[in-house]
């Protein structure tokens, strides 16, 4: 099914307008990355050139793990609110009477959560690596300024964010309560941290080839998740609280 860019853009624009008018969203989007960046910077800046290479390597890996936590955790609550929130404020029914398809609606919602998250993640990554280049010891700078880490951040941040968003959106599309959706959304986004965790534990090193292969796999998962979540988006259930399939089964028709 072809998607309408106009409709998707309309959803994204509306979401951004709502973010702007709700300062708590902006604040929380900035606070968490700030903490996740500031703490490792302090740690890395305290490492001298005489530190053992293994310790330096571990500290750098943990830092980069924290940076990849940002795109996973940041959009989780926003995504979990995306559908149930519309229903909660009474805007879902008017919205669903327009020609927007569920795929367009969900893609717009997803992009609106992913784009700022990735922007924030990239920004803090750049701030971190520049700060390290300028102020940290040379051994730390050498460890951080590896093409593989840059590639991993570049590729994994948006893909992990998208994963987290789709999980949150799936929960949102099936939940009946905003609070439950947001709590579950945050919890359910955590498995996406497995990838950066394995990298920080040095189970594998993100060489260019490995990073690209993993990125392709993540991209495939994200596209599949879009389709699956779209199938889970049941207009009837969202409007009336009852799914058509269940109702027919119960009615015996």
């Amino acid at each position, binding site marked *: 099914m072809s998607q*309408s860019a*106009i*409709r998707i*853009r*309309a*959803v994204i624009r*509306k979401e951004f*307008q*709502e973010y702007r*008018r*709700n300062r708590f969203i902006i604040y929380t989007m900035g606070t968490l990355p700030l903490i996740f960046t500031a703490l490792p910077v302090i740690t890395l800046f305290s490492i001298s050139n005489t530190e053992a290479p293994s310790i330096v390597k571990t500290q750098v890996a943990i830092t980069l793990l924290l940076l990849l936590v940002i795109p996973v955790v940041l959009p989780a609550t926003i995504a979990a609110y995306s559908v149930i929130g519309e229903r909660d*404020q*009474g*805007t*879902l*029914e*008017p919205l*669903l*009477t*327009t*020609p*927007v*398809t569920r795929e367009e609606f969900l893609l717009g919602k997803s992009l609106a959560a992913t784009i700022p998250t990735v922007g924030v993640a990239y920004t803090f990554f750049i701030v971190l690596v520049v700060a390290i280049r300028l102020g940290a010891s040379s051994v730390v700078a050498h460890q951080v300024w590896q093409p593989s880490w840059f590639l991993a951040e570049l590729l994994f941040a948006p893909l992990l964010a998208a994963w987290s968003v789709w999980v949150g959106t*799936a*929960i949102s599309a*099936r*939940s*009946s*309560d905003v609070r*439950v959706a947001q709590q*579950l959304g945050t*919890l*359910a986004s*955590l*498995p996406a*941290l*497995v990838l950066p*965790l*394995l990298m920080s*534990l040095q*189970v594998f090193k993100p060489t260019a080839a490995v990073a690209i292969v993993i990125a392709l796999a993540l991209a495939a998962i994200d596209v599949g998740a879009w389709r699956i979540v779209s*199938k889970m988006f049941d*207009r*009837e*259930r969202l*409007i*009336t*609280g*009852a*799914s*058509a*399939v*269940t*109702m*027919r*089964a*119960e*009615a*015996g*028709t």
Partner: protein
Amino acid sequence: MIGRWRRSSETSRHESTVAKRQWFARRRYGFGVRPMTWQGWLITAIAVGGAVGALAGVQKTAGEILLVGVVGLYLALAFSLGGTKRQVVTDSRASGSDDDPELENGAAKVIVPPEIYGTQTPREIAEEIISRSGKFADTAEDGASSDSVIVVSHLTKQFGQRVAFEDVSFNVHRGEVFGFLGPNGAGKTSTVRTLSTLVSPTSGTAQVAGIPLNADRDVEIRHRIAVMTEVPGLYLRLSVTENLAFFAGLYGYRDAQPRIDRALEAVNLSSRASDLCGSLSKGLRQRVGLARALLNDPEIIFLDEPTAGLDPVASLEVHDLIIDLRDKGVTVFLTTHRLDEAEKLCDRVAILNTTLRTVGRIDDLRQRMFHKSILVSTAVPLADPEGLFSSIGSVAGWSTDDTGGYVLTVSDVRVAAPAIARALVAAGADVLSLVEGHHSLEEVYLELVGAGSMGGVR
């Protein structure tokens, strides 16, 4: 040709046999989207425990054990997503609408038996008709024609075991204001939601704007209709213009500003275009909702209680807007509790209470439900009203009303009135007034809705 609702492939698969349906229902309770059952938790626990135990036994690496643990947790969450309560599933009113459930609509080819008319009261007439056919409809206007923009045939919607509306059939003609009346829970909103493709019918067929109501063509229908829900459903943090621009975008308009300006002008809100919707009164929000419904120049506009909560002046503005829409050829499907509003605006009305009680022009309904009558008022009571009225051939019967006046049942007002006047003058009566009896839509409504409940019709 009216299109029958086509179910999705998933739906069809699960409904192919009773056994499959039962299996599916069990699966949902045990494993899928409802985590609150012991089966669901057991399956989840076995899955998580098994995965962790097996893999941890094979690989001792801390990272891999951790991986397995996290994946296990993920599976647990994934399999227990949702959590919608059962009562929510089966209660359509949980969605916030107060008039979903039972509507009836029947009526395509119901012939009203002529013998029913006679000495019966209106309530008896209604009960008689409903008991005979379960329906009471306008026979002359009920057939579909090329002029019909909504054609509904034997449409039924059930929420679980509960019938929202059943066997509903009616037509709405192009450019008319069609009133949809009924008590709370009659199924009016469910009908609107069905016709606007938000929910799928359980059975029956329909055409909206000439397009079969069909899962594959719902987007096409939504391009040609607009729905104003009872609650405007606006984004309160956005301005009026931003709200309308969003919806214009959903309709696929690139440069929507002229449309937005026109819509705001139509509802007299141009001066508030930059205001945040959260700062508007309920009445103004309602008008923004109306403006939104005008954005796509719809062929059919569904208005669900458009004047609910509005003050009289604002209501009058909405009425004027509805009349303007009709004058422009837009078909208005008006759901309302306000019978005065329906009487003022609607070309035809349908009255529902799970099943359709009637559909037709208000004047026709009055004639069908009530005998024609002439009300006579005199300065002093007549000495022998029985002798006087029985001597007039065109008077079929008479009674007194609460004010001491006389209600004369006649077959033809134009023939009877002069004869009655002459007889009264000849009898020396001091006549204060002699007028044709008038029955309001409210009387028709109460008779039909009351008859249904008394007659045991669901």
